[in-house]
């Protein structure tokens, strides 16, 4: 399968990009980070092509469908979203140090994907719906926003500790100021949150069209609600009670851990209507 070869190449590129960003931090060399950006752009092109090729190959097998329907494909799509989201953030904030904290998330996601079954399987009847596209894409863009927020939250925690100690040397000294990091933790969530909301709503609409119930407290649904509640609490704490900095960063990390559990844990540990996502 040529799509799998392209995805393997993407994995390597994400690994190279992560190494370059980390190397740039240690060597304090912006040129290495610039190379990292180009590798990310290349990875974006290769992974987009891989998704396209996989889509095309599914048609050639006579089971044409969007490539976001099992664990392998969703991991790949998640990594693709994180990379894209990251490139936008890098461009907007004109700072390449984020890469060292965000690109490893994409890299390890791809490494995990490689260990899963990458064959193209036909769609079971329950998944044959146009809602699939809107539901999966919005959910994963939301997840990607939360992943970026969590990566930046780690940067914030490192930087804040250093600022408290009034040191500005070393690797951490190169990170953007706390104020910027804190703002970005929040801004990544306000992009992720509406996408998650639309993801939950499209899921409910689809469930209603497939089973006649828009909400049935299935573990996946419940966990998506749990994430939604955590980030809703984050937003209220931040906007009305002035939760900034450390507490906000920790809450963002808690939210992302819950997101990972909703995405992977529910399929691997619990049983329910979304069981096809675990295969």
């Amino acid at each position, binding site marked *: 399968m040529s799509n799998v070869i392209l995805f393997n190449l993407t994995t390597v590129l994400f690994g190279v990009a992560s190494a370059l960003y980390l190397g740039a931090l240690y060597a304090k060399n912006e040129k290495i980070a610039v190379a990292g950006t180009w590798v990310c752009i290349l990875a974006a092109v290769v992974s987009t092509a891989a998704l396209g090729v996989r889509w095309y190959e599914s048609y050639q097998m006579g089971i044409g469908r969007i490539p976001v329907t099992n664990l392998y494909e969703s991991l790949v799509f998640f990594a693709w979203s994180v990379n894209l989201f990251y490139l936008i953030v890098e461009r907007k904030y004109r700072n390449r140090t984020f890469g060292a904290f965000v690109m490893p998330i994409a890299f390890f996601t791809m490494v995990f994907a490689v260990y899963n079954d990458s064959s193209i399987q036909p769609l079971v009847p*329950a998944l044959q719906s146009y809602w699939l596209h809107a539901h999966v894409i919005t959910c994963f863009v939301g997840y990607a926003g939360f992943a970026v927020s969590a990566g930046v939250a780690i940067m914030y925690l490192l930087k804040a500790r250093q600022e408290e100690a009034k040191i500005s040397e070393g690797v951490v000294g190169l990170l953007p100021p706390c104020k910027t990091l804190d703002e970005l933790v929040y*801004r990544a969530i306000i992009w992720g949150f509406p996408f998650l*909301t639309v993801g939950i709503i499209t899921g409910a609409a689809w469930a209603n069209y497939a*089973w*006649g119930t828009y909400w049935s*407290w299935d573990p996946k649904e419940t966990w998506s609600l*749990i994430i939604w509640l*955590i980030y809703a*609490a984050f937003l209220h704490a931040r906007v009305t009670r002035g939760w900034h900095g450390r507490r906000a960063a920790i809450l963002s990390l808690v939210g992302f851990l819950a997101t990972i559990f909703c995405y992977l844990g*529910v399929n691997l540990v619990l049983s329910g209507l979304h069981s096809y996502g675990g295969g």
Partner: protein
Amino acid sequence: MADEKRAASPMDRVWNFFISVKLAIITLIVLAVTSILGTIIEQNQPPEKYHKIYEDWAFTLLDRLNMFDMYHSVWFLLMLVLFTVNLSCCTIDRFPKMLKVVRNPRTKLDENLEKTLSLSDRWKKKGTLPEWTGKYAEALSASFVKPRVTEADGQVHLYAETGVASRFGVYVTHLSIIIIFIGAIVGNVLGFKGYVNIPEGESVAQVPVRGGSRMQDLGFTVRCNAFSLETYPSGQPKAYKSDLSVIDGGRETLRKTIVVNDPLQYKGIWFYQSSYGQAGGATAQVAVTRQDGTPVGALALAPNEPVPIDGYGIVRGVNYDQNFQGNGPALQVAVEKPGKPAASFWLLQARPDLDRQRADSLIFSFGGLSAKMFTGLQVAKDPGVNIVWLGCALMVIGLIMAFFLSHQRVWVRLAQGTDGRVEVVLAGAASRNRLAFEKRFEKLQTGVKAVGQ
């Protein structure tokens, strides 16, 4: 806050409790944490299953706490009620204040306001007050928004704002949650959910309601004409299809083949393809012809069920072999004719002409086994669902208003200075995304300052 509380009556205290955002945050977190429990303890399983997993004392405890159906338990619903009351009180408390602020914006940049604004700049210009008022009003119109001009105490104030709607985003979002809850309640009270199996060729006019013993009258009849299962070449299921007819007032008013993700709807009641199975045992298909080849009919023989043929006798299928003496599927048939001993013989599916050897008046040929299927349908009526969708749409609109719009305000104050020059103060504020507004303000600052130079 602390000062207000000191003189608060009990009523005020209750009110203050319900309008606090702290309560909202705590409720959100508690809802999130308790919701986890219901995903770990499988919900709505038969008691036997729970007894296998839990010790007796644990079962009793969990059962008392309604942990086996926790999302419908009184305590969970009470938390949702608390959440809704909190949400409503916050809105009732804050919305009128917000409306007042928006309707009567502070168009004058007085000293007090100026102190609270982090973005400000001041400079002096030679010239007259009206001259510069005109120039700056024009500059703001060009690079921001047309300002309102207020004159007071010999000073001129210019005030311009955009994105007022962002102030309402939070209320639209909160309202949307209440609307979704109303929709859910309407659906629960006025609607029903049921499940029914219909064997091929049969009809139902009533369906059993889920979670109860009640039967729900449909007000019409639904017939399953046929069920079929399609598979991919690999054998994985591709489609479950039920050919359904709606019979209302004695005639067929609608016919549709439904599949998963494509239900049938009639008079507000939806039928969803949900399950399927074999209805009763398989029957053997046997074609009957005369010696000259004219067809007499087709028999569907259930195991050992006698089927009479007029003027001939009684026929039964007594045995079936998947691979009879290496010749493939075969059916053993027993024939009883009046006044004659019963005869029994095998029919091979692969050789429909074999029975000619018997030289009887009728020839039987076995066409294979066929199972009568039933289709399993989810049946739902939910008059609240459109209210829920309305709430969902409002929620998305509200979130976009709240997160992606920003209420940006810019003031310019002009006063005739003692040295004959005009003193100018420029200040700005944004309700959110302040970093982006800082950049916009800097641009505006350079632009406005450069006017008339």
